[in-house]
């Protein structure tokens, strides 16, 4: 018995310290190793271009791309285009995602409604939304509205599907509890349906915003004078390849920042699922 206690005590006094140390070690590698790998790759790229092992026309040196990035930043050109893309995404996301979230919640809650709408969604969902863009341009004209509409349509589907799934995964027992304590339909919606589906809705938001980014770039490549997608297209037409790389870098940064902040938001909004959201 005494032995057992000693063993317990020893491991208890040892483990927190060593755990902390190993966690710190892990954290450091976790942060530094990817940066190191990227730096080495960029360095190799730079060397390869300077020694003409790589064509500077197709693969401008990182230093050239970075210099161009600064030029575009200083001229304000980059920010104007970035702002244009973000504005399109946001308008499209709100116009498509908000109705989709509401419809999805109602569909998940009211099986009869979903039996009517499910087949329609199932039929339209597999069509690549960019394939509808010509039709949208015919309907709305080659203008800002048609771009917002197609982005809204592409946001609609991931949002509606996640909202439906979010309500359906709520345990029936929670509806029974609410009924048992005399909740009205409105109270069931605000106390059970809405908070219970929130984790799924938040991943719907993440999917929808990523889709919005993809679609915004796509329609800007097809028909736009402004936006990150149009930078890419003009870069191709004028063979200014470094502009193309600049646009790709900015798109990547937008995506990373967007997903990072959505994860933070999820932690804030869904504190009861810390272990999963983190």
């Amino acid at each position, binding site marked *: 018995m005494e032995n057992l206690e000693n063993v317990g005590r020893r491991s208890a006094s040892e483990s927190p310290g060593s755990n902390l140390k190993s966690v710190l070690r892990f954290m450091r590698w976790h942060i530094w190793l990817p940066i190191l790998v990227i730096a080495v790759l960029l360095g190799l790229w730079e060397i390869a271009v300077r020694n003409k092992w790589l064509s500077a026309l197709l693969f401008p040196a990182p230093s050239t791309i970075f210099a161009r990035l600064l030029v575009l930043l200083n001229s304000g050109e980059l920010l104007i285009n970035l702002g244009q893309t973000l504005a399109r995404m946001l308008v499209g996301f709100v116009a498509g995602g908000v109705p989709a979230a509401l419809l999805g919640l109602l569909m998940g809650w009211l099986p009869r409604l979903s039996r009517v709408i499910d087949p329609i969604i199932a039929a339209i969902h597999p069509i690549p939304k960019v394939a509808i863009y010509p039709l949208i341009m015919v309907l709305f004209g080659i203008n800002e509205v048609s771009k917002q509409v197609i982005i809204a349509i592409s946001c609609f589907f991931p949002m509606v599907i996640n909202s439906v799934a979010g309500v359906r995964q709520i*345990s029936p*027992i*929670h509806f*029974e*509890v*609410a*009924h*048992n*304590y*005399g*909740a*009205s339909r409105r*109270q069931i919606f605000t*106390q*059970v349906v809405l*908070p*219970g589906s*929130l984790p799924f809705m938040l991943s719907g938001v993440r999917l929808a915003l990523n889709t919005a980014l993809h679609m915004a770039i796509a329609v800007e490549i097809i028909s736009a004078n402004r936006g990150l997608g149009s930078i890419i297209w003009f870069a191709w037409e004028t063979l200014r390849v470094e502009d193309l790389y600049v646009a790709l870098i900015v798109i990547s940064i937008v995506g990373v920042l967007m997903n990072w902040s959505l994860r933070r938001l999820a932690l804030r909004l*869904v*504190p*009861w*699922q810390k*272990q999963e959201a983190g």
Partner: protein
Amino acid sequence: MQLICQHVTKSFEAHGATVEALADVTFTVQEHEFVCMVGPSGCGKTTLLKIIAGLLPPTSGQIVIGSTPTGSGPRPAMVFQEHGLFPWMTLLDNVAFGLKMQGIDRAQRNDRATTWLERFGLAGFARHYPHELSVGMRQRAGIARAFLIDPKILLMDEPFGALDAQTRLILQDELLKVWLASRKSVVYITHDIEEALRLGDRVLVMTGRPGRIRADFPSPIERSSRSSTALEAKEIDTKWKIWKMLEDEARASLREAI
């Protein structure tokens, strides 16, 4: 308040066939009476409780509470099996849920909920979410939530089924204590015969599917001595009688299943 269950039957449609879950269940729970129900698994105990709670309509028969059939009378409160708390609400909000549904303002309902949290030793966990608490703490909160709305009738569906033996005994004692202070009519479902004898004034034994009442035992344990002490000879005798009956029923339903 008195609860009468009159000739209640329930059948479900499943895969085109009709499954009879309950066949003519009749019993009465007197005011201030604690009635336990035991039965083989799948005998429709939970279905019966949901019918009494008004969550499911019976196929025939009726539930009379006080002098009115359910739907018009006061609602019984139900304590659910595991997972009855809302994961997205803090313990305080969970316990105060019934009051919120009654439209009582936040300050007052938090006040009253806090008193019940204290009574169950949960005062320090008011701001915690259910996933941060042990199963025992969650079930205490589930019981507190039901007692808080001061229902005339309390329905409990194996509330301690998921607990370890030790915690279960402690919670049985706590439940008896708060129940003795209020003496609500209780219908308590369990598969633990000792628990039924210890808590109940009467123990109803149900048959296998379709469920009906097979026997009605008064608990041999004096109310005053009901606690987590070991059962005495007379009590063990009753326990074995019930055990034999349940074994019969369980074997019968197994034969049917084959």
